[in-house]
Every structure is written in structure tokens, then in C-alpha cells.
């Protein structure tokens, strides 16, 4: 019985990693699309403040491009950490969404700290008892407890909005409700475990230590052991579930910003993009409207350079 949470934890991690990689791969392997950026683009350096681009410069193709990766990273950082767009454009939702997401980050941080702490304790004798170890442990408790608490608060707020807001009700699916409820239950269970049995996060730290060192022993007996087991199992299933749903938007968001919204890289004569463009243009067009006149055989170059008489005559007026 004590083996189940360990197996679920490993399975959850594996499914999460594989599903995220598959999603990244799916987006990364899609063909180069038409340019479709949206300003402001933060890496446009000094011009970004007014939403400008290098296209504001005469003969821009003859001049070196000024790109600020630091500005891009700053924009990414504030968006990821503080959900800046939501704060700016939908404050009522941000009041729930921000604690929910920031709580998640804190829980991830606590888990990472516990995992790293386990490795450090393994490598350095006396780490746990040292002053640095105590500080480390306090950080685990703080990030873990606060993370769980504010994430539950945020999820409940989002759930309430989903179920009661006239703006959202018609757009809410059963899965939207289930997903938030799942978070509330899984994180709620973990928080109860913390509050009732594991105020120092010792049990869960031990579980993670066992997970890292492949020791599949129960971390506690009785109700405490049961609660740790149930919490870990729920969190493991949640971890596996996230990338299989639209909640994997953390992957999509990267591509939506970097590959579409901020992708203003110019295609210069003889540049690296030409090969991708040629590959696209030689694909077959199978659109069936009369003016296309591809017959399912012609490629984009042939269709785009066709004489008007060939496709104009075939049009039904």
C-alpha cells in the first residue's frame, strides 16, 4: 500500500515530462507561418516604450538591428510572475488568478527546495542541523504553506467566478469546473496534512528524499501516513493531468509570444528563412473554391503566379 504514492509520483513526473515535451515538439515542428507580430514588442529596445519597431527607420534593411534581450526577459519575467496582462486588462480575475498562479510557483519552489535539500543532506553530513540547513528548512515551510494557502484561495475565487459571473458562465465547460475543483481538493488535502500532521514539512520532505533515493518506505503510520499518501497521490495525478489539458498554456504561451506576437525577425535576401519559405511554397494547395483552380495538384508558387484567365474564368458569378 505504501508503494502506491511512490509509483504514482514517478508516473506523474514521467507523464508530465513526456506530455510537455510532446506539446513543445508539436508546436516547434509546425511550418514557419506568416509574420503576425503585435506591438509593443519588448525587444525593440528604445522604441518599445511607444510600441515602435525597426520599421520606423528609413532603409532599415541596411542598418544593424537593435534588439534588447534584457527587455524581453524583463517583460517575460513580469508576465510570468505577476500576470501583468491580466492585472492591466482584467483586474477582478487577476485578484484570484494571481494568487492561484503565484501559489503554484511557491509550491513548485518548495518541492524543488525539498528535493535539493535531500540531495544536499546526502552529500554533506550535518547539512540539516546547520544554520544554513535551518534556513533552508524555514524556506521550505514558508513557500510550501503560503503557496498552498494562496493557491487554494485563488482556485476558489476562480471557481466562484466561473460559476457565477454572467460573462463566464456560458463559456464554462464541465472540465473548467473540474480542473479548478481538482486543484482545490489536491491542494486542500496537502494543506490539511501540513496543518494537522506535518507543520515542519518533515514527512513530505522525507517522502521526497525517499523518492530521490529510491527508498519506498512509509513516512509515517496511522492518519498522518494516510494523509501524506493521499496528498501525494492526488498531486501526482494532478501533475500528470495538467499537460493533457488546456492548462498546459504555459507551453502555448511561450510559442504565442515568441513565435507569433514578438516574432519580428526580418527575412533578408539570402537569409536563413528562405529555405523554410521555399519549403512552404512548394506544398500542395487543395482548397476547393472555384477561384483557387489548383485541382489539388498545384503548389503555392503555381497557384500564386497563375494567369488570371485561368482562375478568373472559372469563377461562378
Amino acid at each position: 500500500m505504501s508503494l502506491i504514492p511512490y509509483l504514482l509520483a514517478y508516473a506523474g513526473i514521467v507523464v508530465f515530462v513526456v506530455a510537455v515535451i510532446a506539446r513543445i515538439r508539436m508546436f516547434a515542428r509546425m511550418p514557419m507561418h506568416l509574420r503576425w507580430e503585435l506591438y509593443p514588442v519588448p525587444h525593440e529596445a528604445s522604441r518599445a516604450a511607444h510600441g515602435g519597431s525597426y520599421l520606423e527607420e528609413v532603409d532599415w534593411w541596411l542598418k544593424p538591428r537593435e534588439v534588447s534581450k534584457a527587455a524581453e526577459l524583463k517583460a517575460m519575467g513580469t508576465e510570468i510572475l505577476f500576470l501583468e496582462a491580466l492585472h492591466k486588462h482584467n483586474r477582478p480575475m487577476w485578484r484570484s488568478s494571481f494568487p492561484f498562479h503565484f501559489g503554484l510557483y511557491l509550491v513548485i519552489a518548495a518541492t524543488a527546495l525539498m528535493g535539493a535539500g535531500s540531495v544536499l543532506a546526502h552529500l554533506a553530513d550535518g547539512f540539516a542541523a546547520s544554520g544554513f540547513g535551518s534556513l533552508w528548512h524555514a524556506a521550505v515551510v514558508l513557500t510550501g504553506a503560503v503557496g498552498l494557502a494562496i493557491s487554494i484561495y485563488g482556485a476558489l475565487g476562480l471557481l466562484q467566478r466561473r460559476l457565477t459571473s454572467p460573462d463566464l458562465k456560458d463559456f464554462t465547460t464541465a472540465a473548467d469546473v473540474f480542473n479548478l475543483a481538482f486543484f482545490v481538493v489536491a491542494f486542500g488535502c496537502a494543506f490539511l496534512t501540513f496543518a494537522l500532521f506535518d507543520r515542519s514539512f518533515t514527512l513530505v520532505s522525507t517522502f521526497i528524499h525517499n523518492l530521490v533515493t529510491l527508498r519506498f518506505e512509509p513516512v509515517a503510520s496511522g492518519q498522518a501516513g494516510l494523509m501524506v499518501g493521499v496528498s501525494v497521490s492526488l498531486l501526482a495525478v494532478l501533475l500528470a493531468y495538467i499537460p493533457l489539458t488546456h492548462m498546459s498554456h504555459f507551453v502555448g504561451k511561450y510559442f504565442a509570444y515568441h513565435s507569433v506576437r514578438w516574432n519580428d525577425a526580418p527575412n533578408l535576401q539570402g537569409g536563413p528563412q528562405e529555405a523554410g519559405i521555399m519549403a512552404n511554397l512548394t506544398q500542395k494547395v487543395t482548397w476547393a473554391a472555384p477561384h483557387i483552380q489548383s485541382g489539388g495538384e498545384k503548389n503555392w508558387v503555381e497557384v500564386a503566379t497563375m494567369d488570371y484567365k485561368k482562375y478568373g474564368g472559372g469563377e461562378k458569378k
Partner: protein
Amino acid sequence: MIKNPSIRDLARGEGPVTELNVKDQEPLPPPYDKLDEEPPMAALSSSAKERFVNLDNTIAVNIPKPKTKAEEERLVKGFLSGMQKLFNAGDNWTFLQPLVLSMEHCARCQTCSESCHIYAESGHNPLYRPNYRSEIFRRLYFKHIKKEGTWARGDMELNWEAVARLIELAYRCNLCRRCAQTCPIGVDNGMMAREIRKLASQELGIRPKELHDDGSMLQQKVGSSTGMSSIVVKDNMDFIDEEMTEKTGLTLKTPWDVEGADVLLMHNAGEILAWPENPGAFGILLEAAGVSWTLSSDLAAYDSINYGAFYDDVQLARTLILHIQAAKKLKVKKILIGECGHAHKAMTVIADRILTGDLNIPRESWLPFMVDIVRQGRIKFDKSRNDFPVTLHDPCNITRLMGISEPQREIMRAVVPEERFREMTPHGVNNYCCGGGSGFAIIGGHNFPDWRFRGPGRRKFRQILNAFQGEKMDKEHPKYVCAPCSNCKGQIRDMLKYYDAWEKAGINYGGLVELMVNAMPEAKPGFIDWEWH
């Protein structure tokens, strides 16, 4: 008639799903602050209601109602076939990745709704939410193509009413992408509307006549969507040359087909017919600055429009190739795009991932080109000649979608007294669409123009009125709305007429080059003609 239609209402019953109800609208600023004194919105005729699919008591696309069961099934089957092609890399490499990103990851949080001028000005009618049509499209796709359970993606019935109304609904969006700017995840409902338009055009052959038959097809056939052949356009430009020479006292002779010129200038040909002073002003400025320039009389090269950008990737590519081939033939150093927003975006940004090798001729907005001339002092200006209140409209295609917003302001600072310039709120990349974007400005059937003035255009009119608050609102105190884009200018012209804004508030409109020539001390004064409006 339903005031707050749900998603599923799109597939239900006969007749309109809802309508833009003017009684739900917020009053405009003075002198238009009495809602019941605004001009009425024309009703859709009963014969149109009988013949065509009716979404919201106005019609843009003219989709005939199917007469038989077989026709209904053909529409649904064609829609599903087109939907599959949108997710096929060969057929839709152009937008596959942006489309899938917007399909997969929308959180349906409605953050986008308030950013949409149409939704806001409709009195918050859910039909006009940016995400309403996207969500229906998503539900249809995941249920009927991907065969996924409805518990995760939501349910949506598929019938001919839903298909036809969804296509019509794709023409209730200006494609301004202001909603995409606010999306925390990067979902782009403007792009989604365009994908639905593409599906309808490229698979079913359904789109507004003004964009296709009288638009891109006419341009590819005779050279311009205005119907002007190369002979006619040269005649018209000769006339403009004479007019401008007389009006300014500066000799203008537009150069045609000059091989090896530095710059091939491309105008929206609508300017030549509707606003001849615009191409005339361009000529005056380029001549004054000593630029080596030319126009081309080749097929489509004297008309920069590319309506494919609004509805059809194949048509977009065909027109683009005609533009580029003309530039290649003349061996010019670059193409310069005049005051046309969508031509800017189509020829610079979008074309950037279509053109390779010797077809990849540099394309540039006229704005940075002209700023450079202004900075070098190659043309002298006397700002005091533009001693009237001026506000600036930012065309979405040039600002939000290309990142060009400072050059026009730098020009403005050079030709308009600082204290006379009024920024709209918001402006630049956060601007609102004029309401004529994505082809609306030329779609004129039934009561659609009234709908675009009362719906999409109303936010811009509100901004214009707000910009001029504090001024005397009568025609003895003329005010100028500068709209450096042909489609925007057409929309603003028609909207000012609808609201009788010259008579009631002294508001007129025009381009930016007209303001520049009006400020040239070498030219006779009075280039801007207030009586012509």
C-alpha cells in the same frame, strides 16, 4: 429576438439571433449627447431577410438561404472539409501555428471582451464578444472534427444555420487585433475571425462581393479594384497633375514607369478617384525633396490594395506577386507604400515570409521615408498655415501591427503648431480601429454601412469628439481629423457624413500629406479645402 444570445443560440431557429440595439448604447460626447437625437439606423429590408442568412439584422456577406436539404448538407460538409484544411500544414502553413495556439489554449476568461470597440459600443451584446465566434469555432472543431468529448471543450450543434451565421459573424470583426493585445495567453481572436473568413472563401467560395469579385479579382483582372485600367489611371493622374500645379503653383508631372528610379510609389488607387489631393500632395512633396521616384502602370502595380489580407491567402499571394513583379521589372531600389494601412501590412510584414531571392525587394512605409526628408530639412514648412485643431487617427495596420507610430507624430510636430495638436485617448499601438478595417469601409450592401457607423465606428467617433472637447463645436471653427490610411479615411468620411459632423461640429478629415503641403510656404496657401468635405 434575443438580447443576450448564448453560444448555442447561433445554431437555433430561423431569423436573426440578435441585433445591435441603439437603445442599449452609451450616449456620445457633446454635441451628440442625446441618444434619441442621433441619426436612425436603417432597417434591413424584408426581401433581404427572406433571401439571405440573417445573423443580426444586417448583412455583409449575402449568403443565400439553402433551398433544399441537399444544399444545407453541402454547406455543412464543405465547412467541415474547409475546417480540416485549416489544420493541414500544406493548405494552411501560413497560419497553422497561430491558429492551433489559439484553439488549444484559450482560458475563456473574457479578458479580451472590453478591449473590443464593437462589443463595447454594442451595449455589451455577447454576440460581438471577440471570443464568441472563436469559441463556437473551437467547439465545432473539437466535437465534429477531433471527435473529443464535450465535457472538456463544450458542446455546439452543427447545422447549416450555425455555419452560415458563423461566416457572417466573421464579418463583425475589424481584425484590428486589439483583443489579442490584451490576452494574457496570446490567443488571437482577430486571427480566428480571419481564419473563418479564409475557410469560407477558399473552400466554399463565400465572401463579400466587394472584397472578392469587385475587389481582388477585379484588381487582378484589370489592374485596380476601382476598375481603372492603366490608360485610365494615367489620364486621371494627368488631371491631378494639372489640378495640383494650379492649386499649389508648383509644377507637378507624375513620372510613370521610370526604369532604375530609386523609389516605386504605390498608392491605394481609391485615393486617385476619391481624394486626388492625396496622390497630388505626395507628388508635390517628392518633387520638392528631389526624390528619384516613379509610379508603375503595370497590372495591379498602380493600386497597392491587397484585399486578400482580409479574407483569402491565395488572393493575398497573387496580388502581392503582381506588385513585386512590377518593382522587379523597373529595377527600383525599393517600393514605397503610400497612405494605405492594409497595403502597408500586406506588403511589408506579411509578405516577408512569402518573398525570396530577387523577389525580396525592400518595401518601406512612406512615413520613415518622409521623416528622413523632414529631418534633413529638404522641405520647408510653416506650421502657422495649419492653425486649426488637429487630431491623429492611428491606422491599426500601421501602428499595432507594424510598430510605426512615432514617425507620423514627428511629421505632425513639424507641420502643426504644438498647441493645436490633440492626441486621441488611447492612441498609438493602443488605438481603436476606425470601424472600417478589414474591408468594412467598402462593404456597402443593405444597411451594413449604418451598422458600421453605429457599431464599429462609434468608438472612433467618440474618440474624435473627445479629442476636440473644449473647442467650439461649429463649422466656423474647423477641426481636422488626420487619417493617414485610405480605408480609415473612407470610413471617417462616411461616418462624419452620417453624423453630419461638419455642419454640427465643424469636423473635417484628410490625410497627413495634405497637412504637409498645406504648410509649405512655397505652395499657394489653402491646399486644404474646408468646403469640400
